[in-house]
């Protein structure tokens, strides 16, 4: 099993969610986060005083998937989240040692 974490542009969330549910992903967790990469932040100006805002609002997606879905998820997620401009985000994949569904006690692939 794999844990997929993706940092994406907030306005791309709905598109990404629809694309992933279309390929059979049944659940995900979404968090509003702030951070910066190469995009850096932006400037705000109030009565001539400038502030550099370093942390840009982003959305973090987390989903657990079976190993055989990895390529498809990366491709689908990447395509849906892409605008082609700086700040589109990143996808992180890591191995997942176990998953437990709390209601039934199922573990492993059956719980994903």
């Amino acid at each position, binding site marked *: 099993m794999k844990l997929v974490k993706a940092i994406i542009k907030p306005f791309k969330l709905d598109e990404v969610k629809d694309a992933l549910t279309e390929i059979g992903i049944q659940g995900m967790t979404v968090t509003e986060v702030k951070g910066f990469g190469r995009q850096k932040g932006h400037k705000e*100006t109030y009565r*001539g005083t400038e*502030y550099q805002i370093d942390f840009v609002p982003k959305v973090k997606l987390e989903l657990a998937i079976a190993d055989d879905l990895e390529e498809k998820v990366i491709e689908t997620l990447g395509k849906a989240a892409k605008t082609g401009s700086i700040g589109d985000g990143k996808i992180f994949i890591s191995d997942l040692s176990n998953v437990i569904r709390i209601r039934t006690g199922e573990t492993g692939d059956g719980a994903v």
Partner: protein
Amino acid sequence: MKDKRVSLKYISILFSVLLLYSLAGSALADEGSAAISAGDTGWLLTSSALVLAMTIPGLALFYGGMVRDKNVLSTMMYSFISVCVVSVVWVLWGYTIAFGTDVGGIVGSFEFLGSNGVGPEAFPGTAVPHLAFMVFQLMFAGITVALISGAIAERMKFVAFVLFAVLWVTLIYAPLAHWVWGGGWLGELGALDFAGGTVVHISSGVAALAAALVLGKRHGYGAEKMAPHNLPFTLVGAALLWVGWFGFNAGSALAADGIAAGAFVATHVATSAGVLGWLAVEWMYTGKPTALGGASGAIAGLVAITPAAGFVGPISSIWIGLGAGIVCYLAVVWKAKFGYDDALDVLGIHGIGGTWGAVATGLFASVGGATGLFFGNPGQVFIQAVGVGATWVFSFVGTFIILKVLDAVIGLRVGREEEIIGLDLSEHSERAYT
């Protein structure tokens, strides 16, 4: 506990004396003999309520939106409490210092102490009740003190501000109002101030500078982000100030007549031009017109037209408003170079805008029996400059002394930790957003 009971006893004695005094006064006051105009009275009472709306909620929102979210309640409370404290002081002794019979051109006599003798009869030279005139002036005093709070926001103790309000309206505002409107030396000299450019705006703007210097900078000033936490508040507040200002300026005609209509038009046109002037120069300098700039330009235009409102036509109003937007923008931007922390730019907008307006009145005056430089009376600019200079010096020195004394006696600033936590929690035990 014992101390509290003793002080309560003194307070109740004080109130009993005042009550008896006012009862005696109302028995003596003779009923109005001169004619009262229903139209004038209706307009002046409406205007009084409009001026109240400038302070609360107008100014409270305008300032409240510009501070950080940990200080919004304390900032709005400064405006709220200004109105309440000044109202009580005004009917007790403020009004008579400003409008009692002139003593040496400097202050009024104590003839109206406790509003004694202020009744339903017509105020001399008008067709409105003396009471209506008194409460209209009360609202002016209230907003002037509230304006200063923009300079000390996010760091001044509530109790210190309350005491400051009592002292400032007594020792600075009331004498200044007397100088210009109450038969004092500036009015005698011929200084033109239709609705309070010097008395209200220069005085509060300069007091704000003195206050910013005495209190010192906010913790983290220049290093931390101190951006406005709710600009929609600020925009709504500015719009309410604009609406209320018709009472301030057109109400200052003290009649529902042609001069009031002229002041109304001048006020509206100058304010619109003030927004355009500020946004244009901001656009040029930073590449973007901002919402805060629009709100600020509106206030700059309103401030500048205040002394001129009843003396100028619509075209002159455009120039006065445009000038205000540009001059005040530059004043606010250049503030950073001087290193004092006038948190919400009271000096930059009210002090500088009021100064521009007072001088511009000397340039553009052409109606209501007044004539300025551009209409053949160069001497008026000089008289205006005397009024501006006297107000700057008196307000700055007086405010400086009042605050230094208060600082020595009770301390002006909250502690460093309280300031970092925010005044809403440390001074009021509340949070705006939970």
